[in-house]
């Protein structure tokens, strides 16, 4: 019982905290983000396992994690509002070559992030070559170029 409750608590806390910290936090991983991820997983592992290193405990925790995950995906499929709440929504940040500044500011990204993605994925060099740039729910920026 203890293992299941621990797992649910940790899963719920991580879900809320990572949602709060914003989608960019762990999406575009810098070296430091990678280290942060390692530290978070280390701290999480301790809380999940406690001092019980038995196989049973590990199996119970893995089963619980996957059960929550599957359960959430089922709920997300049935109730669109819950998907919005858990994953958020994509948002347009560039429209027909014009940057939507206010939106960028609130999402804590800047023009250079968009340009980086434009170079990387489309080989574009300036904002006015972009028809749409979308900040996806994963935190990545997808770019649709203007017709040439």
């Amino acid at each position, binding site marked *: 019982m203890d293992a299941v409750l621990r797992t649910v608590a940790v899963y719920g806390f991580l879900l809320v905290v990572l949602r709060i910290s914003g989608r960019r936090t762990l999406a575009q991983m810098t070296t430091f983000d990678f280290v942060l991820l390692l530290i978070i997983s280390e701290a999480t592992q301790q809380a999940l396992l*406690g001092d019980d290193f038995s196989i049973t405990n590990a199996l119970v925790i893995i089963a619980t994690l996957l059960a929550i995950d599957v359960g959430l995906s089922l709920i997300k499929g049935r109730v669109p509002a819950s998907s919005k709440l858990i994953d958020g929504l994509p948002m347009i940040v560039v429209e027909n070559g014009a940057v*939507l500044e206010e939106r960028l500011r609130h999402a804590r990204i800047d023009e250079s992030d968009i340009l980086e993605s434009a170079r990387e994925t489309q080989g574009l060099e300036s904002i006015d070559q972009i028809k*749409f740039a979308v900040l996806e729910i994963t935190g990545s920026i997808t770019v649709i170029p203007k017709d040439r």
Partner: protein
Amino acid sequence: MPPTRQDNDTWRNRTHPIEEDMQFQRGTWRAERIGWVVLWLIVLLALLGLFSEGPLSMASVESPAGDLRITYGRFERNGAPAELKLAVEPRRAGEVAIRISAPVMEAFTIESVTPKPRTERGIAGGVELLFPVAAGGPLTVHMTMRARSVGVVTGEIGIGENRPARLSQFIYP
């Protein structure tokens, strides 16, 4: 400065190439901001010791007769070590009997006691530890316990038949 076309336009919901809900998005941002404040508060309270080990957690209590002073942590965590310091003023040389009530024994496992008691035995309502003491000298006992339950623990620790000191602790999961 008059609003430009884009300012008016910023929060309009687009439908192409994706379906937007900017009202929801702005709500999310507000929730994020509140969440950050909560995170900082958690860090601050942790520094202050609300989650054990800190000024808010440190407490001490004295028995009614004044023969025992206990320094303990108001907040402890399940599975984590908890320190307890008992300062005893013995009336005479010989032996001091420290009695620990059952609720404390149920909530904590005693991992080590320094100095070691000469004997320990179960008594009605708890455990009694017997320490030899030199003439007149105060006795300080350090106990390292490990919490093994969750919630409020109200226990009593006393010297022999004297009225014990009451201590109340909260153990986090």
